[in-house]
C-alpha cells in the first residue's frame, strides 16, 4: 500500500511538488510568525528551507540538482525550472503602472539603476576577493547579489554551473534577510516615512520580499510603493546583468 503511494507520488511528480512546497511554506510562515514575530518574512524562511532540503538531497544522492535528484521529488525540478519561474516572475509585473513609476520621477529611475549596479559591483568585488576570475562566475554572483531571481536568470543565460547559481541564490537570500531586519531599525534615520522615499528605497534595494517585509514592519502603508519599484529592479537586473554588465565584466577581467 505504501509502495503504491510512493509510485503515485513519483508519477504525479509536479503535483507532489506543489503539495510539498505548499506544506513547506505553511510551516515556514508559522515559524516566521511564532519564532521571529514576523521579523523574518515567511517567504525568506521557506526559501532557506528549500536551500537546506537541496543540501540534504545533494548529500544523500551526490547529484547536482539538490532534492530533485531523489525521484520522489523530481517534480521540484520542473516546478522550479526556468519555464515556470520566468512565467511567475513576469506575472509579478502585472498591476505596476507606468504613470505611478513616473511619480517617483527621475530620482526613482536613478535609484533603480544605481541600486542594481551597486549591488552587482559589490557582489563581483567580493567574488573577486575570494579568488574567482571567470567572468561568467563573477557576473552570476554579482547578479545574485542584486536579487536571488536575477542570479539564476543571468547564470542560466550565460552558462554558469549549478553550484555558482546556488551560490548566487544564497547571496540574494542573505540580502533579502538583511533588508528585512535592517529596514525597521534604520527607517527613521533614512527618512522612510512617505510613499516617495519608499519607492526610492525599493528601487535601491530591489529584493522584493526583503523590501515588502521590511516596510511592513516599518509602516504597512508603504509596502505597495516599495514593492512596486523593487519589482522593476528585478526586471532591470534581468535585463542588465546578462547583457551590459556581463559585457563590462568580460571587458575588465
Amino acid at each position, binding site marked *: 500500500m505504501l509502495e503504491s503511494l510512493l509510485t503515485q507520488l513519483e508519477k504525479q511528480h509536479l503535483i507532489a511538488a506543489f503539495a510539498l512546497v505548499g506544506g*513547506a511554506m505553511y510551516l515556514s510562515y508559522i515559524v516566521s510568525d511564532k519564532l521571529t514575530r514576523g521579523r523574518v518574512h515567511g*517567504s525568506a524562511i521557506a*526559501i532557506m528551507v*528549500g536551500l537546506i532540503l*537541496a543540501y540534504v538531497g*545533494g*548529500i544523500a544522492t551526490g547529484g547536482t540538482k*539538490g532534492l*530533485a535528484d531523489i525521484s520522489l521529488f523530481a517534480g521540484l525540478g520542473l*516546478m*522550479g525550472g526556468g519555464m515556470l*519561474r520566468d512565467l*511567475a516572475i513576469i*506575472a*509579478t*509585473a*502585472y498591476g*505596476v503602472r507606468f504613470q*505611478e513609476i513616473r511619480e517617483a520621477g527621475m*530620482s526613482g529611475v536613478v535609484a533603480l539603476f544605481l*541600486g542594481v549596479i*551597486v549591488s552587482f559591483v*559589490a557582489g563581483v568585488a567580493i567574488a573577486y576577493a*575570494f579568488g574567482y576570475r571567470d567572468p561568467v562566475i563573477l557576473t552570476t*554572483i554579482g547578479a545574485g*547579489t542584486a536579487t536571488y531571481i536575477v542570479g539564476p536568470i543571468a547564470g542560466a*543565460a550565460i552558462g554558469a554551473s*549549478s*553550484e*555558482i547559481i*546556488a*551560490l548566487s*541564490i544564497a*547571496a540574494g*537570500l*542573505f*540580502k533579502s534577510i*538583511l533588508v528585512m531586519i535592517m529596514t525597521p531599525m*534604520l527607517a527613521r534615520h*533614512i*527618512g522612510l516615512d*512617505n*510613499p516617495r*522615499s519608499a519607492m*526610492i*528605497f525599493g528601487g*535601491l534595494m530591489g529584493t522584493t*520580499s526583503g523590501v*515588502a517585509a521590511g516596510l*511592513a514592519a516599518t509602516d504597512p*502603508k508603504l509596502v*505597495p510603493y516599495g514593492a*512596486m519599484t523593487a*519589482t522593476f529592479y528585478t526586471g*532591470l537586473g*534581468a*535585463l542588465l546583468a*546578462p*547583457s551590459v554588465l*556581463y559585457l563590462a565584466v568580460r571587458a575588465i577581467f
Partner: protein
Amino acid sequence: MVIYGVALLAGCMLVGLWAGDVLGMLLDIDSNVGGVGIAMLLLIFIGGYLSDKHKMPASTESGITFWNGMYIPIVVAMAASQNVAAAIDGGLIALFASLAAVSASFALIPLFGRSSKKKPSSDAPSTDQAPLSAPSVASSHSRPTR
C-alpha cells in the same frame, strides 16, 4: 475567462524571450539578453492599456494574479533543486557579498534624502503626491489610506 489572462502572460513571455534571443544575436553574445525584463515591460504596458480600456475582467486578471502568487513557491522549488551541497563551501562569499551590497545601498539613501524631505510628509499630500493613487500591487496588501 482565466485562460485569457494566462494566454496574455504567456504571449508576453514568448515575445519577450524571443526578443531577448534576437537581441543576443544582434549583440553577438550567445545568450538571451533580458528577455524576462522585456516580457515584464510588455505585460506592464499591455496589461495597463487593457485595464484602462476596461478589457480586463476579474476572471482574466486572476489568470495572471495566480502566477504572481506562485512566484515565491516556485522560487522555493527552485532553491530546493539547486546544487547547494557544492555551493556550501563558498557560503561565506554569499554572506559577505550580501553584506557589502546592503551596506552600500543603505549608504546611498541619504543621496536621495533631500528630494524626499523637500516633499511634505504623507500626512499632507502635495499636488505632486495627490495623483499618486495606490499601485495595484496594493490589492494584495493593505491599501494605503491618506
